[in-house]
């Protein structure tokens, strides 16, 4: 089964299971990939209908399914994603003698993949992003960009490198006009401008917010508008610095899911690299997580998961509890924990590779201790944050 068919099926399944919000968003991604303007218009009408009939779930499901059927009939040419869009070799940046330096780091990014950049503050996340965005001069190493269209000048290259800093600038005037302004600058024909803009507004769930002023938006919606504006530029590489800062947990998840889905477009995949402090959320959507510490990096990705299977490593469990160390030590005494670190309300327990996570849970259950949550972080970059 082709990727597109799989995706259509997935959307259908979401609609069937009444996951309407998710289903509708993914449906819009499917429609977007068709680049069919009649379907765009139908999607926009549907978004409008949805906004006017927020409680009519049956009607929405029915309309979504009809649109999905039409979308499924349009063939989509899948874009190749094997080649790296950015190849950075031994990147090195120094802010001066005895000051912070980054690297050498080698970074290769493919289209359609999401790269999470994590690490404590002051360890080089923003520096790396700005180097990739050509905002900072390299002191060593080399970066090669392989975009669909070759860039003719350094300015031309910069138009293709979309970097969104942590603090975005204020928008002035109508939000919709701001979005349309981008398309006009990218020479999108006038007749497509409005449709593409509304499509993006709908896709990022901004339909009911498009008439508001920038100052009336919450941080989450500001970020969503910023992302909508960014995606209208049809980037091949997207560099986001802390896009989840100041967002509530729900907004974080929503934005990450949207980004993952949009970047995973079939005919216009985008290479995304984002920095964040939200480890677990980022790990959930990332194909690769880059952990930076003192300007050097550790990588964890799907290949690591396999390595763990074949080459057993320690089991590391994070436990949040108000219990004393003695109580926990007693609960785990049969599992022979190697270390138990208390990190201000959170315990990190290190067990031998022979211990499995369910055994830890069993031990906690048997001891009838009160815990807030526990998590296996053996494969998570969270383990790098343990001092």
């Amino acid at each position, binding site marked *: 089964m082709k990727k597109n068919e799989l995706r259509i099926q997935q959307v259908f399944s979401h609609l069937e299971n009444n996951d309407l919000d998710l289903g509708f968003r993914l449906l819009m991604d499917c429609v977007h990939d068709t680049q069919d303007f009649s379907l765009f218009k139908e999607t926009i009408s549907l978004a409008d209908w949805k906004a006017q009939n927020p409680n009519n779930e049956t009607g929405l499901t029915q309309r979504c399914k009809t649109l999905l059927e039409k979308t499924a009939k349009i063939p989509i040419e899948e874009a190749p994603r094997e080649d790296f869009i950015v190849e950075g070799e031994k990147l090195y940046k120094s802010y001066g003698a005895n000051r912070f330096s980054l690297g050498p780091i080698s970074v290769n990014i493919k289209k359609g993949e999401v790269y999470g950049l994590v690490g404590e503050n002051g360890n080089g996340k923003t520096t790396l992003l700005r180097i990739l965005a*050509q905002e900072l001069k*390299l002191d060593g190493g080399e970066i090669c960009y392989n975009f669909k269209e070759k860039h003719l000048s*350094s*300015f031309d290259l910069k*138009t293709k490198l979309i970097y969104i800093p942590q603090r975005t600038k204020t928008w002035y*005037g109508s939000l919709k*006009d701001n979005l349309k*302004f981008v398309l006009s600058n990218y020479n999108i024909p006038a007749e497509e401008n409005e449709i593409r803009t509304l499509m993006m507004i709908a896709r990022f769930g901004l339909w009911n917010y498009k008439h508001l002023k920038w100052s009336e938006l919450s941080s989450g919606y500001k970020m969503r508008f910023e992302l909508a504006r960014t995606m209208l530029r049809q980037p091949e590489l997207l560099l986001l610095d802390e896009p989840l800062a100041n967002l509530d947990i729900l907004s974080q998840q929503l934005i990450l899911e949207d980004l993952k889905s949009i970047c995973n477009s079939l005919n216009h995949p985008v290479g995304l690299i984002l920095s964040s402090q939200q480890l677990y959320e980022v790990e959930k959507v990332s194909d690769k997580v880059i952990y930076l510490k003192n300007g050097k990096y550790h990588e964890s990705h799907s290949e690591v998961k396999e390595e763990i299977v074949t080459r057993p490593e320690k089991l590391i469990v994070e436990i949040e509890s108000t219990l004393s160390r003695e109580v926990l030590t007693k609960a785990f005494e049969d599992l022979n924990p190697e270390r138990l670190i208390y990190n201000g309300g959170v315990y990190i327990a290190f067990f031998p590779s022979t211990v499995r996570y369910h055994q830890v849970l069993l031990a906690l259950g048997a001891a009838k201790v009160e815990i807030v949550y526990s998590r296996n972080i053996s494969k998570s970059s969270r383990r790098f944050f343990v001092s």
Partner: protein
Amino acid sequence: MKKFIQKTNKYVLENYPLLWNIKATWFLGSAILLHALFFLTGYFLMSDVTVLHKRRVIDIFLENGTAFFASIVSIIQIVIWLIYLFKNNAFKEFYPTSRKSLFFQFLIFFCFFFISISYYFSYTIGIKSYVTSHYSQSSFLEDVAIANRASPFFSHSLSDYTLDKLKYPHPLDSLYCETTVNDIDLSKPHYIFKKNYYQFYSVISIEIPLNDRRSGRLENEIHSSYTDSSRIAFLKDTVVDVAAFIRSEKPLYSNYSGTFYSLKYSIDTLNMEKNNGVFKVLGASPYYSVEAWKSNKDISELMDQKNPELIKERLQKLLDLVQKYEIPTNLTTDQWLQLVYQPNAFEVTNIIRRVPNLDLPSDYYDDDYYYDYNYVVSYPESAQDISEEFTSYKTEILTDYYLSTRKLYNTFENIEHISHTNIFEGTIHFFIWIAFFLASILFAFRVTGLRPLLFGIILSGILTMMVGLGTILFDFAGGDSSLVALNSIFFMGTIILILPLFFLKIIRKSFLGIFVVLSIVGFAGYLLTIIGIISTLQRQRCVRLFDYNYEEEKCFILMNYLGENTSYILLLASLIFLLLYTSIIKKWRALPER
């Protein structure tokens, strides 16, 4: 209306993002409205004919507060526009921007600034339109002729009617009348009125080459004029007895040879036929003109006819004119005729005031009153020694009648000046360069940022101080400080221009930004410096070649040769430079920091 605005906004946004970004439609719309408003204000201002009574009404924009109002309007308009402009910057956001579009942006800035600060033109065009449409050339010439024909009877100044004004018939037109008491040869024919002396001399001329050391005033010299290679000195020669032509030693209307209003732009005046004799060579002097001769002939012949009706007709026509132009007077035709006409005698026995006889305190001062009171229509009284008797006689015959001929004169001058003046000449350069300077500052800010602009201003201030100090020091040492200053500016300008051109990838971006700003804003000045250096060197060479006979006209000096075109050439060159420089701007913008 709201729908129309939205529709227009949508169209411009979708098709011309740059124009939308700078709110060009609304800016232009408001600018056109404001220009129309200024035009109408200027136009209807002229519907009050008394406005023309003051001097240089063409400059009224600067004098009646309109300039201040226009400045406020310009500032508000520019500020509002900038607020909208600063909302978006596609170039800084790295949206695709071609060099052409960047240059176009500058051109728009330039045009907008020019439009915003040039309300002077629409206001003055309004004034000009009213004047040209309400005072046709033919009716104006007729009015001037009426005023000139009646002017002998204005009777403002007794000196206008004394013997020295007599120019008709020949040979009086070729003689010089001496009025300085100490220069009168009492042994030869002379004439006295109230202890004022008059003696007529023949005139000879001597041509002195310009390189002749005898550059001082010669004995008996009364006037001099210049040709390309020589100075012609006119000397009074021998006393001539003109008793046969003199009716009386008293001031007579038939002595009048003044011209109330001489056309300044008339082709007739330019091609004025020169009279015979000494007038031909003395044509350049205001004291010897064919107009004086004609004027004197005209009034002499009129008086000789002894026909009061002819005089009355002249006075009547003048008073009609006075009514048309709302000139203050308390004269009626009959009263006036009574004042000026005595059968068988042409003597001036009544003086008519130029302003009403107001009982003003001695320390009273008013500009108009002062000028009106002291204004001399045709001859400066200082040319003559005035005796006390003469002065007291003037007071004796002074009446309370008044006719504000000064206002009539101003009206004529204004009509002629406004009709013939090209209001763009000269002033256009002022507005062009103000607009260009503001546009280049704004453009530099838009493409680089606030920091490079501020540092650019600081650096240019430091460099100016350095050049100033260097020049002062050099001046103390006795050198040619102007050339030193120009050379220093040229040297620094060259470095500023070269750095972004050739060291783009070597020097730090933030540092280079300052030079990019200075290049954008200062290129026109740099070119002007080059022209200045060339011209100064050419001038120095010319001085060396011709020594004390040095005249700039003898040598080719670039700045003189280019003249007013220098401004247009600099503008064109600056625009071409900016078009080419957009490439550097884009490269600089794309540079990474540090």
